[in-house]
């Protein structure tokens, strides 16, 4: 994605910046409060970042806009509150929540990395993901992620690993579990059948007795009653297992529906001017919602009641099974030992041939499973190794860049973040973040510009600054930096325009007056293009 334009505004005041080029862009001014941060934050906010605007800006009053070029397609984004509208080739899509937008982003723009958090596979948040290429001015902290919310630095590392190798944490854990369970079952069955087989072979006398006693009436009765209990137990077990299966499915369904349901209730676009919710999508196709609150509530309630019914039923089956098992034990105890032997071994003796075949069949399946599990394991091992190697290279390069810029023998950098109590600040902080962004960009090809708000804060010397600029240029991709100059630097024309450097001067903007009525007409045009008619 290449940033083509960014803007913020409503019908009364607005600002749009569209002078970006596909090289190194430096937005600079001779003083603070010219609106550089607002502009950068607007662009990021419009694509789903959590806001870190200056406190003086009431974000509820404005629309935030950006236009990117992505794979030769122009895509425009317009955000108001938690709603984001996306316009591509004249088609406007509406996302009422950031979650919905995230799903769109994942499908249409860039597949967001997935990793396992708290035992569950999740998709990275846009805010976390953007930190791979974006550095805001505020809330920086080299020892953890910025504005992390539910995410911490180990999540960031897991996310990077997933970016290095999408298969790394995307391994289908469910499937491996199924395979492992099946292997256990097979081993048990094979064991049981083998014992029966060997029993028949090793006990020819019993085997003969069995064959003779099959027709004995007394024996038959005893045997039948045991068989009956056994088959009852197995019938109950089957029922219980199926109900358990259904219960799991319902529980999954309900959490799935609940999350969909939540999305439905929040996020409405409001007119920034009058607060009215009556904003008309003038060429939309009107349809009813697929369901309404009452229907959804009722469905969730019936699923809940089915879940509790199933839990009760499963408990019933379990009681029944243990009752029958006790009965079986009691029966077995009352039957003479040799008869018990015969009954137990009857299966084995009568079905010797079948058992043989069955074992062969089970062994075949077992082998296949073993192979697949071994493959999986090898794959996991290789993937882990590859990912860890690349991660080590990223950190290695970070150290190298840091040492190079700061002209130190050896930096104290040990990882993507500093230790908890070792927060870098001032120029060290700048160089740390620089090293991290450049190193990540070098090793992971991300189709996003590098954006650093305030890239030389904290007394970074001109010499170091020039080195950083050169490295940014070496990346051969769009880079957007902002910078506040001292008056002396400003008058010396610090960033001369060149083929690879696009300086954008904000000094002429009046302090705290980024938003101007003169941009309104253009901004209204943008709103109209999104089919928004404010009234």
């Amino acid at each position, binding site marked *: 994605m290449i940033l083509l334009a960014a803007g913020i505004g409503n019908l009364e005041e607005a600002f749009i910046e569209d002078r970006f080029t596909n090289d190194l862009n430096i937005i600079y001014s001779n003083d603070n409060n010219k609106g550089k941060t607002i502009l950068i934050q607007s662009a990021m906010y419009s694509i789903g970042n959590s806001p870190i605007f200056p406190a003086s800006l009431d974000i509820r009053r404005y629309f935030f806009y950006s236009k990117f070029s992505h794979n030769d397609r122009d895509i425009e984004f317009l955000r108001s509150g938690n709603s984001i509208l996306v316009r591509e080739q004249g088609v406007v899509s509406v996302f009422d929540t950031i979650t919905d937008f995230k799903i769109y982003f994942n499908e249409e723009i860039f597949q967001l990395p997935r990793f396992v958090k708290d035992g569950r596979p999740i998709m990275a948040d846009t805010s976390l993901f953007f930190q791979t290429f974006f550095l805001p001015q505020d809330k920086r902290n080299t020892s953890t992620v910025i504005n992390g919310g539910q995410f911490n630095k180990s999540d960031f590392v897991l996310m990077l690993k997933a970016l290095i190798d999408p298969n790394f944490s995307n391994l289908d854990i469910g499937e491996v579990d199924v395979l492992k369970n099946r292997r256990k079952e097979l081993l048990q069955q094979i064991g049981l059948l083998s014992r029966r087989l060997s029993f028949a072979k090793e006990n020819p006398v019993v085997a003969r007795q069995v064959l003779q006693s099959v027709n004995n009436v007394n024996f038959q009765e005893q045997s039948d009653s045991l068989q009956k209990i056994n088959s009852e137990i197995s019938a109950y077990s089957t029922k219980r297992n199926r109900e358990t299966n259904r219960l799991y499915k319902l529980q999954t369904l309900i959490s799935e529906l609940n999350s*969909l349901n939540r999305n439905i209730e929040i996020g409405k676009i409001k007119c920034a001017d009058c607060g009215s919710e009556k904003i008309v999508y003038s060429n939309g196709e009107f349809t009813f*919602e697929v369901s309404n609150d009452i229907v959804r509530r009722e469905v969730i309630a*019936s699923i809940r009641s089915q879940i509790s019914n199933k839990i009760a039923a499963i408990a019933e089956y379990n009681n029944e099974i243990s009752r029958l098992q006790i009965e079986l034990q009691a029966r077995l105890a009352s039957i003479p030992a040799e008869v018990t032997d015969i009954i137990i071994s009857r299966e084995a003796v009568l079905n010797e041939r079948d058992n043989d075949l069955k074992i062969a069949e089970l062994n075949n399946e077992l082998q296949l499973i073993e192979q697949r599990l071994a493959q999986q394991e090898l794959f996991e091992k290789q993937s882990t190794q590859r990912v860890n190697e690349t991660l080590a290279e990223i950190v290695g390069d970070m150290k190298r860049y840091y040492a190079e810029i700061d002209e130190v023998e050896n930096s104290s950098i040990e990882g993507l973040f500093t230790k908890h109590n070792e927060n870098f600040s001032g120029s060290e902080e700048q160089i740390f973040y620089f090293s991290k962004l450049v190193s990540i960009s070098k090793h992971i090809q991300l189709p996003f510009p590098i954006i650093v708000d305030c890239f030389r804060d904290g007394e970074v010397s001109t010499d170091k600054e020039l080195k950083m600029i050169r490295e940014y240029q070496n990346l051969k991709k769009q880079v957007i930096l902002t910078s506040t100059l001292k008056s002396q630097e400003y008058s010396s024309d610090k960033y001369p325009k060149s083929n690879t450097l696009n300086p954008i001067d904000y000094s002429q903007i009046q302090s705290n007056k980024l938003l101007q009525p003169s941009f309104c007409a253009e901004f209204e045009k943008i709103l109209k293009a999104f089919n928004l008619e404010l009234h």
Partner: protein
Amino acid sequence: MYKIKNTERNNEKASDFETFSMLYLLGIRSDRDQIDLVLVDCFNDVTGSDDVVSRLWDVQSKGHKSNTPLQIGEHLITLYENFLTDFPFEHLILFLETVASIHVRDASLVIFGISNFTGESQEKIKEGLLREFARRNSILPSEIPTDKVNSFLESVDFVLCTKDKIKNIKNLIEFKNKDVRGDDFFIEIFNEIRGMQSNLKSTNVEYSVLNAPSDILFFRKYITRNQIVTLLVNRLVGIELFSNHGIPIDFIPYVEGMDREDVRDLIQNCVAAICRTFFDKNNKVNVWRFLEATIKFLMKDSTLGVEEIVGQIPEQTLRGVPTLDSTSTRFLIARIKDGLQ
């Protein structure tokens, strides 16, 4: 030729009243089966029509607490103006909240012609209409040819609104177990229809010129009977998705010969798929397309089997709802069919 004027935007109470008039056309009138769609805020507040716009049921709705005969006459103005055009306004209906009993001969009637008004009221009504027409056209009342006005008044149906949201919705279709639903359920549907109606109102067509009645369809300012029926069926099927444990008769062939427990699994999977579809708000246009097609075919011929219905739905429509696999699609159609029988 027809020039659209006097479209209006109004408040919730008035919207309620216009929804009642729409439901009157679709659910109460004896000739309701001939009305395929209701145009919103085009010719009048609402106007019923067949699907090719060759016959129109024009409704002026006035939800005022009280109306004097003079005011009633004034309310008739748009109907009268429509009557004067060459568009096929077959039925002209003034939909009122109340008419005081002193003005009418038989106060028990809820639908009546001009003759039910007392003689004095009839005169006032006529006077009100003439006055309003003259005012609008900047002429004198005496310049209006009275024979036209008289034949107009003879053809107007005066209808008193039965302001019962629940009954009005229930009237729309027959559906199994419909009556076990609480009042909220029907009121919510009423509100949804009202919401759609006011959405349609916000598209402005004022001063557009139509050459033929069917040109009005171009503005898409209408709700079809099929949409309303689909809405109701969808809500009725939706609300009992998990609480209805029966297997619809038309689904039985698909589970014949299967083990009982397998059937239960299959049905749970189908219901879960339908739930996901009904909770997914990102695909509503496609879901409605599918549902409307299903219901259209079923309404046309209730003897159609599930496979025949599936066969008639365009492949693209079926593919548009990826949350429904082929079995769940058949299960949903069977449920709908079961409910409608």
